[in-house]
């Protein structure tokens, strides 16, 4: 009798994540499960605690998901090889941090490469805001906006399209989701400006 495979194939995982919508989260979890054995092998290989290795593995899966959704993962290497390489790099980073006593220092927020293309004026404002620790303050304000705005802006941050956000929130169209999302952004800005003043 033909047996059902224990895990979906890599092709199905990639297609499922790229499909987005309600299926995306399911396939993301399946991706996590499929290569979870790396946690144990990483613990032995890099002599890290299981919690540290699990944290590196979660970061790896999140990076891979982002690379899959943005098209940065082009499928030139096998998913297994790709995930293994990123995971190894994250473990090595973790070891470096530990050996240089930097583990308690929060990582500075690294901006996407595309932000480097911004005109000087906007880039310097942005860098000032980051230097002032504005990200943490924004995250606090985000939680105060109400469940709907919070969910919409989170989904936007995760790279979901307005069409997917409309499905998640229960709006009829992507246009309605977009208008609502930008209104939430406006409300956040008003709260933010009050805090600054």
């Amino acid at each position: 009798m033909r047996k059902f495979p224990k895990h979906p194939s890599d092709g199905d995982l990639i297609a499922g994540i790229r499909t987005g919508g309600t299926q995306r989260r399911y396939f993301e979890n399946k991706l996590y499960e499929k290569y979870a054995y790396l946690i144990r092998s990483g613990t032995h290989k890099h002599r890290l605690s299981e919690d540290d290795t699990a944290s590196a593995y979660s970061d790896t899966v999140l990076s891979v998901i982002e690379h899959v959704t943005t098209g940065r993962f082009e499928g030139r290497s096998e998913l297994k090889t790709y995930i293994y390489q990123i995971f190894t790099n994250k473990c090595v980073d973790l070891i470096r941090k530990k050996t240089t006593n930097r583990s308690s220092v929060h990582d500075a927020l690294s901006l996407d490469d595309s932000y480097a293309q911004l005109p000087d004026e906007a880039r310097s404002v942005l860098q000032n805001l980051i230097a002032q620790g504005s990200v943490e303050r924004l995250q606090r304000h985000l939680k105060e906006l109400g469940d709907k705005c919070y969910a919409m802006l989170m989904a936007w941050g995760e790279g979901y399209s307005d069409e997917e956000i409309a499905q998640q929130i229960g709006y009829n169209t992507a246009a309605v989701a977009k208008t609502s999302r930008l209104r939430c952004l406006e409300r956040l800005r008003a709260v933010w400006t009050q805090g600054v003043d």
Partner: protein
Amino acid sequence: MDDFVTIEKYVNGQLSPVEKAAFDDALRTDPALADALAFYLLTKQAAREEARQQRRAEFETLRHQLPDTAFEEETPVRPLWGGTSGRWIAAAASLVLLLGFGWYFVRFSSGLDGQTEIAQTTDLNTRVDQYITDNFSTLSPSMGGEADSLQTGVEYFNTDRLADAGRVFEGILQRQPDNDTALKYAGVVSLRLGNYDQAITQFRRLSQLDLSANPGLFYQALAYLKRGRPEDKREAKILLQRVIDENLDEKGAAELLIEQL
């Protein structure tokens, strides 16, 4: 909000070259616009970071729910001993095991309740898997308003591109929520992918449609049996009994399965 509409187009590269040049100029002369752009980008980054923290926490929960075997790499099984002496050791070990089993069966031949239950469960699982293999390995298209899209989904399914097939069937359902074939096929994809919660929901929706032949309840029972939570067998039994009592589609198969419950 208009600012953010234009800023979003700028960030996503959706402005025409002329509009982009005008926006770049405005950024140089209008500090408020530069502030708004910086705020937009920083908020997106903050939301991304917040979402990542949430997902990290969810993965951590998932990790603790996984069985121990999930952390072991699946590797091909190799013989433990390759040499001639190894074969002798293996043969001797097998003999000891056989003798041990023989003694066990003689000693406990009267108390077989637990073994019978295990055998029944195995038999049930075998029958469920057999049904799925026989009926859900390939799909055949039906005629209808969405025949082209259905055909595409069926082709994906039949070439093992299950997630692609699921996406096509979900797309049809967004346009036609009551398309019974798309709903049935979407449920089959979920079942094949092991997404049993979703399969149960989809087959429940199918069972609620007014059709001359509707296997929805039976398929729902299959999904419960595959999911295998403690209460799922009971749910499946109730559904199978309904299929039999109400003389619904797949009654014969339901009778075969219910024998094992």
